[in-house]
């Protein structure tokens, strides 16, 4: 008698489930925050978000702070992505990309203050400025955003 093959299901770890829940919550928050007139739909890479959560946890960020922090991260990284090169006058999407980047950047500040991440926003401000300087000068090697978050979160952890 032939036996049906035995399948071993590997259940996702509690940590992975928790990350999924936080990512879902952050994406829901984004939908609430973004004004419908903008028609902005964000679909960030899930693996990159999971990586960001790993970094935030490594920096000692408490569970209840994670969804807000991840939302702040998505807003800022999406704002920077929208303004990434190439930008050509002939690009039919140029107008929307400029507007989306500007809007998401202002929403990043607003949302950071709303969820009491003003201190983080202040810490990030020189990094954000340096990213714009590097881009304006056509220099490669701008500081990766996640690394900037890590540096600021770590410095806040140490001064606590």
């Amino acid at each position: 008698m032939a036996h049906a093959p035995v399948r071993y299901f590997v259940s996702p770890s509690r940590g992975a489930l928790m990350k999924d829940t936080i990512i879902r919550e952050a994406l829901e928050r984004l939908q609430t925050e973004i004004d419908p007139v903008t028609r902005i739909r964000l679909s960030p890479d899930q693996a990159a978000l999971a990586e960001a959560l790993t970094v935030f946890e490594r920096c000692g960020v408490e569970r209840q702070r994670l969804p807000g922090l991840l939302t702040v991260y998505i807003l800022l990284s999406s704002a920077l992505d929208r303004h990434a090169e190439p930008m050509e006058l002939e690009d039919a999407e140029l107008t929307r990309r400029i507007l989306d980047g500007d809007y998401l950047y202002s929403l990043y500040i607003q949302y950071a203050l709303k969820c009491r991440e003003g201190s983080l926003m202040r810490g990030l401000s020189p990094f954000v400025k340096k990213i714009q300087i590097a881009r304006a000068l056509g220099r490669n090697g701008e500081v990766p955003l996640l690394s900037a978050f890590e540096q600021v979160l770590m410095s806040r952890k140490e001064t606590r």
Partner: protein
Amino acid sequence: MELHKKLRIDLRRIEREMKRIVKYDNDVPPNSELERALLRTIEAGGKRLRPMLVLVGSRFGKRSDEGRLVQLAAAAEFIHTASLIHDDLIDRSPLRRGEPSLHTVIGPAKAVYVGNYMSARVVELLANAEHTEDPFGDGRQSFTAAATAKLCLGEYEQLEHAYDYNLSLDDYLLKSRNKTAHLIAVSLEFGARAAGAPEEISSQLYTFGEHLGLSFQLRDDLLDFTSSAEQIGKPAGSDLLVGQVTLPILYALEDPVLAAEIRSIGPTSLPTDIQSLLIKIRASDVLQRAETFCETELEQAREIARSLKNYAAYQDLLTLADYFGERKF
């Protein structure tokens, strides 16, 4: 007499502060393309209305940290200038105040980043000060975010309603408040707050600024029909041609003959297609009706100014209202 003289404001000090904000940034390499672009943009000048509004707003408070107020005034102009750089790209406008716009000189991407740098630099400068001076204690207000979020929404609304001849008056007013009036109102409000003015006075100044700002936009709409290319830097009827439905157009759409001609204008229309329509609109009563609307907004602003008679600076608000009413370009 020029507005800044009537308001007893030294514009050179604001321009010096704007340059100082760039030159004292150790992260910007001296004499780099970025520094040159920033200084060129600052030196190109402008009306400098927003910094003047910050300083007038501050006269309603008791705190007199001059240096800090001038910095906030310069920051307001930075935010406005950054938005103009991006606007020129959005409109594909080759000129700004009769000179080549920044993106035609350094390319679109770099122009975007120069604007972004200006916003980011303001956040960096004001972040710590806003934290310590935040009247709510929870940091829920940021000048940069307050100034730019609605400005973007106004742009989206404009984009959404290009060539939309069924636009309602309410939608037009919402777009104009977001795109133009809000930054004017916020400049007055934050100036007052930075000087420690009572919250209800700051709010009244915001409302005053909203009326003032709306009249500013209405005046712009009117100038599109009444001014020459030399005066406003673009040919008459430019708004009409690019599908911006302004107040005179909304009024003109009430006339069936004018409406038929307006509705025929689309993205492929040429300047020659609108010349006879421009003449008919000028000959109709729509410009006078828009002028009356503009004057009503200014009168509402003056009423708020008069309610603030206990403050000597209420006279400055009246001066602003008169200036906005007489603006020719």
